[in-house]
């Protein structure tokens, strides 16, 4: 008999419980304004890099918070650290520090690995 039910393709689902959210935790600790993002996209709209290549700081932040870190690792290198994003953020998120911290976390996993 055919089995129906919750058999969803693994890659489609955010496996929230299994995903490793230690990079996000590391950023929360060192840059508390990381919690203030409301996903408005102001940063991404103005971003120098994101207007030419697939790169959204808003998206990277939410991916980190969900533990979808693989998608962030290489992408974050596209940021040019121009700081335009922090000029528009309505929540005063210290975007540049978040990027720096994420990069550091990826380079030195022992900083945050559990």
């Amino acid at each position, binding site marked *: 008999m055919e089995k129906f039910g919750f058999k969803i393709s693994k890659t489609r689902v955010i496996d929230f419980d299994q995903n490793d959210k230690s990079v996000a935790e590391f950023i929360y600790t060192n840059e508390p304004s990381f919690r203030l993002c409301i996903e408005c996209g102001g940063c991404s709209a*103005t971003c120098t890099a994101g207007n030419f290549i697939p790169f959204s700081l808003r998206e990277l932040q939410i991916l980190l918070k969900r533990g979808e870190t693989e998608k962030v690792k290489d992408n974050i290198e596209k940021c040019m650290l121009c700081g335009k994003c922090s000029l528009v953020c309505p929540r005063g998120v210290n975007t540049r520090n978040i990027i720096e911290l994420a990069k550091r976390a990826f380079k030195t996993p022992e900083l945050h690995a559990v």
Partner: protein
Amino acid sequence: MITGNVVVVGGGVAGMEVAGQLARSGCMVSLIEKESSAGGHIKEWHHLFPDRRNSMEVTDYLARQINHDNITLLTGTTIARMGYGKKVFTVDTENGKSISADAVVVATGFDLFRSERKEEYGYGIYDNVITSADLEVMFRNGEIKLTDGRRPEKIGIVHCVGSRDEKVGNIYCSKLCCITAVKQAMELKEHLSDARVYCFYMDMRMGGALYEETYRESQEKYGINFIRGKVSEVGETIDHKLIIKVEDTLVGRPLRMELDMIVLMAGMEMSKGGEQMAQIFGLKTGENRFFAAADHHYGSNESNVEALFFAGSCTAPMNITETISHARAAAAEVICYLRKAER
């Protein structure tokens, strides 16, 4: 019936309602208004949400409320000084009057956020970037036109201008601008049936009576489009088209759109008059700069000063229904206070 003299500061919706209620209970009321006539912001508004009734119906009601022998309306008047001692206020006006009162009601309302402060949105820089208030004037005049006289075909509405924005020092939500955007979007379509209208929002805050229904109606009957993202800036093309920059956050990609007209949903701020009152009399204000009432739940009309009460949107953004209810509650508090004082 009770007796007592009450000064009401501010002749907008809240002040007019509280004055009317107090006069009918027997108080003698001095209603002080800085402008040349009472009525407040609603005078400048054409139609009201959610039902789009003509605002004149409400201003007519308010005019009837203050049409009472016990009310003295002092227009073009501001307060210079105010003192309190032996249970009596002495209120000195800038034009040299001195009024004694047993109680004072502060109903100084709000000021609209000055949109030119949000420079990146181009108000005062580009033609055809207007505010929600400017659009109401156009509605009242019955014509929606660009500065060159043409009819706009593509219109963008920007939510949260001067609200929920740390960059301008206002972290609170003004509460009325989402529903105003929806209302104005529908009215634009009524004037310009061929036009396309796009609302750029961060969250649709539809928490009032009939708001969500109005939102739905705007989609169903008027074809209003909603795009989720905070506008980062407005620019102009060489052929004088406005261009908006936003991330379409639900698609996850930056979006560009050319528009003929942009309407900014200006938020609400503590009024300058209210700030002066706070200074003159040491009234407590909150982080949002509006007056801080004595208790958020059961003392929203009481202040930190005996016999001085708050009415309306000088304490927080409020719609007209809420303002009138809050003003009636303020009148009840004043009456209760005067009764106790009589005994």
